[in-house]
């Protein structure tokens, strides 16, 4: 995680040097971080924005790119000069995924997904900080809304990770899977989760219970001990 005002500051530098900002909202779009957009959570004012995944709840493939007026005007003028915008996919805006996206967005509105993510996300981080962050092997809990990760470290004080060859992250993922929990390992032995946004608090507790069991087991494995 960057410090809170990081993006505002870096964006000021980019603006100064006429550098466009593209927000990749493929994961963060549609409520994941507790706002509709990750850009809002991070204080980013993008010139272009891409989104996908939760746009259709992943049920059908679809992505969208939004473009600011200034950039659209430039593209339109160039395409007009050439005679046509020579870009597009056979399935750009395919009616079936688009219809599913419209229904998905309707459901988000009806269930007030943003409030739900904020409430359940607050519970998730409370649980993670108290029960996972306190574990001897866990250096940091991070994330926002219902996007969370924790980093497994060899040394809590120096934030040092285990050697990648020990495959601590993948070992943890397998231990979780044995508990009936699917998560993912990212660089630096960071275990990440991004559950369905409809998850409720009691289900969050079940996830955290499984993390705690798996972490205790992890301590006894060759990945950590030898």
């Amino acid at each position, binding site marked *: 995680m960057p410090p809170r005002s990081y993006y505002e500051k870096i964006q000021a530098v980019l603006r100064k040097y006429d550098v466009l900002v593209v927000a*990749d909202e493929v994961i963060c779009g549609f409520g994941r971080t507790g706002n509709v957009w990750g850009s809002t959570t991070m204080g980013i004012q993008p010139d272009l924005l891409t989104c996908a995944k939760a746009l259709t709840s992943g049920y059908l493939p679809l992505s969208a790119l939004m473009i600011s007026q200034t950039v659209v005007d430039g593209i339109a003028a160039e395409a007009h000069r050439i005679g046509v915008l020579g870009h597009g996919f056979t399935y750009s805006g395919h009616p079936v995924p688009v219809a599913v996206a419209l229904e998905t967005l309707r459901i988000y509105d009806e269930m007030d997904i943003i409030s739900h993510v904020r409430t359940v996300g607050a519970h998730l981080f409370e649980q993670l900080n108290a029960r996972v962050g306190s574990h001897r092997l866990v250096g940091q809990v991070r994330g926002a809304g219902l996007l969370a990760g924790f980093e497994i470290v060899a040394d809590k004080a120096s934030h040092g990770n285990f050697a990648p060859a020990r495959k601590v992250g993948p070992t943890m993922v397998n231990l979780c899977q044995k508990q009936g929990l699917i998560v993912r390992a990212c660089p630096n032995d960071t275990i990440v989760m991004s559950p369905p*946004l409809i998850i409720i608090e009691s289900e969050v507790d079940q996830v955290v219970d499984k993390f705690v069991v798996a972490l205790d087991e992890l301590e006894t494995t060759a990945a950590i001990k030898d």
Partner: protein
Amino acid sequence: MSSTLNSLASRAKAAVLLPYSDPLTEVDPLVMERGEGIRVWDSEGRSYIDAMAGLWCASLGFNNERLARAAHDQMVSLPYYHGFTGKAHVPMIELAEKLLAMAPVPMSKVFFANSGSEANDTAIKLIWYYNNGRGKPEKKKIIGRLRGYHGITLATTSVTGQVVNHTSFDVPLNDRFLHVQTPDFYHNGLGGKRGRLCLALCRRAGRTDPAAGTRHGCGHVHGAHFRWWRADRAAAQLLRKNPGRAAQV
């Protein structure tokens, strides 16, 4: 776990080039069969809480009936159409309007694609197109992040900052793609005496946020003491040296 010859897992390994897997691994893939709420079941009947929603996808869980019905209804009324050469259709218009109304900042138009990679790839192509159109054909640089992920098309894999996506794929494509450091304070903030001094100054200035007030308050201390900030200053300097050639991301 070894698989019997005709198990689904062994057939998966035999017939599918599975993404992000070692094709020669001994480990069997989990073959998923059905889902309900936040859970999925494999072909052996074991259930899992899928705390990844697949790949950050199934936000409404794994059995939303309304989405199935929306797909079915559209399949029946107009199962395919496109937006090429002066065509459009109703769902496309409605979704574009809805997305523009939701955008975090005013946006003008929506372009549709099928994947995150394609949307990002289109962003890159259209930025070059835009810059060519406004008489800055030399402005091509795209700045990504180490460890960032933006997809795997030729252009987006070059923006992605992960080693496995680059190795042996002949990317990054060319000198148009730069990578700056991950803004990860946990690892890249400077520790030690000077780092602690900096944090202490921030706290005294009433800021819990160590990057706050870089140009005032405790600013100088930060600028000098956070490696990530220096990396981005280096990027900024690079742009300054070559202001005509900077693009974005």
